[in-house]
């Protein structure tokens, strides 16, 4: 007996009311990969055992990442009808007091509280002795679209997603709009791919929509092997419903018959939560035959890959789903003509698809009004390195990169100064501390020799050596070269050899020219971005830090001493 969307919405609303304003307090614990690494599972165990031993009744949910990773493990308590009060850097020993005083006694442990988040619809007074978390530097600049539910809802419970507006966009697309109008909304939004290339999403979709083949695929790329970027995995762990809904809408707009979500094997948190979101969507009739009573039928499957960074390249990704070595294909034909299993295919990044439900709900014009110039909307940044506040933020494009580092991330730890910023993943570039007065915009950053890429920003202070960092990035690129075309396979190996030599203070005066020549060959002769962009880390480092390379080569000294310490690289590579 099919249940109507209205009935599902009512049930979801009833459950949400029970969680937020029912009989019992609600405890939420951040358990994305960042929380896990900080000890959130141990905190969750402590919550369970303290509730039992103190005889306290409460609802407990494992949520995703609120973005304030520096404060993980992060736990919050919401008393019935009240506001959320957060505790940061919780250790298992501190849980007993939170349970006895706050959960059971109704009195927040003010001295240990990180802040509160006021809840819509609550008429309880906000605490006057606890800071407002929305005024925290990491949140005050934010505009949460793709991350609107992250850290708020249990990712394993589709009803919590529906209670917060989930699947309204799909309903609007299927019932109120036709396929073309849905595509038009995405076109009006100016949305560009967030995987690195920043290609207009609606244009990509229109290639597939224009292909009349009966079987067509939409692929979602969550390979995300980039060191320093974790926003794709974090969306899957925090709010997989947004991605699944975005993918169903993409399927509808392009006339596709099936979607695949592609995730690296071993990342069990993202995989399990994504699987639950797909299975539950199917149970509620958002996937399968005749979705919401229309003639649109669609399925989503989760496909796993082995470890391979190049598997994130769109044609290598299709090879991996087909079960082969993740090596890029020659183009043409392009995926929209001949893609997965020879069928027309469209490939989007997780973040790109995660924007789609809100774009359809609120309209493309609304999204286009956010951002800067042709870089519309927001960008999801991963802030890492020795910054005061590390984590994940969603800020409007057009924000100044200087403000991101000095304000949002609070500057460097221990009052140290920024030395360089590595942006956009291992194929991106570095910027010197004096060169970050830039608007965060796809074109502006590209012109500066860096890219927005996947949104990773790795900051380094004065103790870091730029030559060592460049060597580390190239070691990664060399290890991950798939080996299909020799300019990349051999070029990366040669670049690494030269950089190892410079780090060992045995470089020669010809080495910089040698690297440039290798880099030019890689750019001209490689089949995919891995080789074409592979010289970027070196060229951008030389652009801003030439004298530090000279110190290694001419003066035979590493100014920071970093290069004197032992270095290790993985033994097994695809060379």
């Amino acid at each position: 007996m099919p249940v109507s969307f209205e009935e599902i919405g009512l049930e979801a609303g009833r459950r949400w009311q029970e969680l937020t304003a029912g009989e019992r307090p609600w405890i939420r614990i951040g358990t994305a990969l960042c929380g896990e690494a900080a000890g959130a599972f141990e905190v969750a165990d402590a919550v369970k055992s303290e509730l039992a031993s103190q005889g306290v009744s409460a609802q407990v949910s494992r949520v995703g990442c609120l973005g304030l990773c520096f404060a993980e493990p992060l736990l919050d308590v919401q008393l019935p009808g009240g506001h959320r009060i957060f505790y940061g850097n919780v250790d298992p020993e501190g849980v007993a007091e939170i349970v006895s005083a706050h959960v059971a006694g109704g009195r927040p442990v003010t001295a240990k509280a990180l802040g509160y988040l006021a809840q819509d619809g609550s008429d309880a007074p906000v605490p006057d002795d606890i800071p407002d978390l929305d005024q925290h530097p990491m949140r005050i600049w934010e505009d949460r679209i793709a991350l609107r539910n992250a850290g708020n809802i249990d990712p394993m419970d589709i009803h919590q997603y529906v209670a917060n507006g989930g699947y309204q966009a799909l309903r609007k697309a299927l019932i109120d709009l036709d396929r073309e109008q849905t595509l038009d909304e995405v076109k009006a939004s100016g949305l560009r791919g967030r995987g690195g290339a920043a290609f207009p999403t609606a244009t990509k979709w229109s290639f597939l929509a224009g292909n009349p083949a009966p079987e067509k695929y939409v692929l979602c790329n969550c390979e995300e092997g980039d060191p320093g970027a974790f926003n794709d995995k974090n969306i899957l762990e925090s709010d997989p419903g947004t991605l699944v809904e975005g993918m169903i809408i993409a399927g509808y707009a392009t006339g596709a018959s099936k979607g695949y979500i592609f995730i690296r094997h071993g990342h069990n948190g993202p995989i399990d939560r994504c699987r639950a979101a797909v299975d539950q969507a199917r149970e509620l009739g958002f996937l399968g035959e005749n979705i919401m009573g229309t003639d649109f039928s669609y399925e989503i499957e989760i496909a796993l890959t082995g470890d391979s960074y190049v598997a994130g390249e769109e044609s290598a990704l299709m090879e991996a789903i087909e079960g082969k070595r993740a090596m890029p294909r020659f183009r043409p034909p392009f995926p929209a003509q001949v893609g997965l299993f020879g069928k027309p295919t469209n490939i989007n990044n997780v973040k790109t698809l995660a924007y789609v439900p809100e774009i359809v709900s609120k309209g493309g014009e609304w999204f286009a009004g956010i951002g800067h110039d042709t870089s519309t909307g927001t960008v999801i940044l991963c802030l890492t390195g020795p910054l005061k506040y590390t984590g994940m933020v969603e800020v409007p494009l057009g924000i100044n990169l200087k403000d991101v580092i000095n304000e949002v991330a609070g500057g460097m730890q221990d009052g140290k100064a920024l030395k360089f910023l590595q942006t956009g993943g291992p194929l991106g570039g570095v910027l010197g501390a004096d060169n970050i007065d830039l608007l965060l915009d796809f074109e502006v950053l590209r012109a500066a020799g860096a890219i927005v890429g996947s949104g990773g920003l790795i900051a380094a202070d004065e103790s870091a050596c730029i030559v060592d960092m460049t060597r580390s990035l190239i070691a990664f690129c060399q290890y991950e070269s798939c080996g299909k075309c020799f300019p990349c396979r051999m070029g990366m190996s040669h670049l690494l050899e030269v950089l190892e030599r410079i780090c060992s203070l045995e470089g020669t005066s010809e080495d910089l020219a040698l690297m440039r020549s290798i880099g030019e060959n890689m750019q001209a002769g490689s089949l995919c971005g891995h080789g074409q962009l592979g010289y970027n880390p070196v060229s951008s480092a030389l652009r801003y830090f030439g004298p530090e390379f000279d110190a290694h080569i001419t003066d035979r000294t590493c100014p920071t001493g970093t290069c004197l310490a032992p270095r290790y690289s993985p033994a097994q590579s695809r060379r």
Partner: protein
Amino acid sequence: MSGLEQRIHDAVHGQTQPTVTVLSSLLAVEDELGYIPKEALEFVAGFSDATVNDVWAVASFYPNFRFEPPSEHVVEVCWGASCHVVGAMGVFKSVLEAAGLEDEGDTPDKRLTVRLNTCLGACSQAPVMSMDHHLSGRTNPDSAAKNVAHLLEQEAHAR
């Protein structure tokens, strides 16, 4: 059918997703056994109507596959740029010393495998390591050595 062959058979046939491939079958075997024995290469070849050579091409491409039985425990140290810039090399050196190894690999008593991982995915908690696939962040050489010692006090990791 030997016990090993039975487990390979069940892992490959136990896949529930619609798209079953050489790679998905190898991943299923690795989940079950922790490695890809020669028997699995042959079984997956027969199952997928591919040659052993084709299967080996795939298996040898992805560095997550290993071809010898796993040690009792595995420690991975993240080697990505976010971890590198805050001291991953020192953490790895300390892990090697605690394990009595010179570089990546297995200890002779097969109690521990140590390897580098290109990104464990918790970059905001760098430097990150994992013990039997459980993440530990904000490590330093001292805490990393303690993590290894603590792990070696435990029974074999139930697979």
